[in-house]
């Protein structure tokens, strides 16, 4: 495997409960989406990639360095941007002040150059009008953008974003997708989500995680291809349907083993993902 991110047989257990039970994938330039249900191990895997958590076993190689060694870890952190799932903020600081604080932690010590960089990332995420406001006074969506802005400080080569669109309204999600797509040009971005629309919109590669294991790693098109011939419309729920729901036209969209002569549909990324994860509890019958 080659790329900025190499993960081989990585495992992590918390209190005898395996959070990651054997993940394997590689990611290069562009946006890679980790897709999986809640509890699939996405956050644990991203935290290991952000060098804040050590794996129990397996091999991680990030930007050509081993995060298990102090020198490797330092080298990675100097080229890393990280947005945790629930980023904390010093709420009494202004937007500019907080990003400036993180910039100091990122070793940008020259005051003038650091402030220029802070202004750059604030402009990038569209926060310039509120840069002087205290974080406690800005909305949740803006705080999310503050989190993204700090992750982009220093123009990092590897950007890790844990559920960057969680809890955002549709307009903000579109704005985030635009920003993520832009930062994915020329660097490696790995993001986690449980929204297939996010992956379909911005990711060049998708890794499906389920119960701590990587079930699929490849392009979204290749994942969709796996569901070809397995989605059909009918008046009722098909016997071989793994999942089925009635759509707006009153017909039932079936996903599973199609019967002979079924009216096949072009699968979506969501169909392919559901087939792969195989959550039968989601079945909605007619």
């Amino acid at each position: 495997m080659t790329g900025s991110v190499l993960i081989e047989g990585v495992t992590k257990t918390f209190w005898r409960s395996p959070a990651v039970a054997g993940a394997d994938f590689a990611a290069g330039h562009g946006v890679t989406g980790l897709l999986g249900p809640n509890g699939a191990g996405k956050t644990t895997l991203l935290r290991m990639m952000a060098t804040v958590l050590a794996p129990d076993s397996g091999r991680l190689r990030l930007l050509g360095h081993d995060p298990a060694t102090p020198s490797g870890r330092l080298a990675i952190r100097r080229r890393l941007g990280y947005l945790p799932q629930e980023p904390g903020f010093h709420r009494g600081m202004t937007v500019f002040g907080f990003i400036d604080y993180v910039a100091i932690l990122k070793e940008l010590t020259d005051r003038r150059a650091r402030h220029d960089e802070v202004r750059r990332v604030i402009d990038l995420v569209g926060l310039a009008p509120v840069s002087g406001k205290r974080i406690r006074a800005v909305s949740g969506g803006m705080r999310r953008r503050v989190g993204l802005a700090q992750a982009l400080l220093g123009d990092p080569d590897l950007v890790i974003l844990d559920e960057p669109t969680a809890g955002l309204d549709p307009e903000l999600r579109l704005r985030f997708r635009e920003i993520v797509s832009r930062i994915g040009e020329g660097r490696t971005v790995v993001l986690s989500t449980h929204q297939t629309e996010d992956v379909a919109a911005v990711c060049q590669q998708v890794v499906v995680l389920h119960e701590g294991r990587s079930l699929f790693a490849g392009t979204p098109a290749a994942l969709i291809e796996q569901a070809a011939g397995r989605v059909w419309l009918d008046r009722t729920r098909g016997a071989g349907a793994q999942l089925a729901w009635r759509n707006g036209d009153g017909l039932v969209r079936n996903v599973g083993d199609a019967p002979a002569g079924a009216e096949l549909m072009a699968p979506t990324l969501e169909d392919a993902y559901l087939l792969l994860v195989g959550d039968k509890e989601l079945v909605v019958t007619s």
Partner: protein
Amino acid sequence: MTGWHVDEETLARYAHGRGPLSVGASVEAHLLSCARCRALLTPAVELDRLERLWDDVVERVDAPRPGMVERLLRLAGVSEDTARLLAATPTLRASWLLAMAAALAFAVFAAIASGVHERGTLLFLTVAPVLPVAGVAVAFHRGLDPAYEIGLAAPYSQVRLLLLRSAAVTAVTCAAALVAGLLLPERALTAAAWLLPALALTSLTLVLARRVDVIYAAGGVGAVWVVTVVSSHLHVGQFAVFGAAGQLACLAVAAVSLVVLVADRDRYATRLGGV
């Protein structure tokens, strides 16, 4: 439109930022109402200088205004970036400082009100060294630093940050305890006898923090300290811990702890750094 115009030489000096301020102010006032002079000025202004001036203006408007703690640190000679990191320490905020002052006030009040000076003094001497330990623990506990995980993934040395914050918290707490100690009747003893124990307990907490959560380390060290003071008071004699032998023991604990702290900094980096 005005009836006069700025001569070319004065205009050139103004464009290059030279000449007396009074002349510059006069030219500036004139330019506001004279299109002809503005037109003459434009090509004389160097773009580089204009950009620098504009950057200065933006910098003044944008740059975060330092808070009180940060300003005090800057006055004390701390660099701008280090002052910013220290000012974000939870235990250098007003709420913590007030809680610490309240604890000290209680100890002083108890010492004076008891009427039995030895017991009151002992209470103060027991409490004073524990305060910096608590301050250090809270200063670096991951649950109390909202941006802990973001900081962890940054290249800034977590060991350096720990030591900087610990030193700042210890200095502030010790200064407050020093003032409180001078208010007590037995001031010859209370003014300084707790200093070495405070240093020993704080450095021991930092050493233990490489293996266990800093809050547990601080709690354990504090509990052992209280038990030691009380048992030595009961079995050896009043203020035994604060006598020459006790002070020497504290000095030894502090010295060994600091040596371990420096020698084992990679292990701290690993523990604090998460990986």
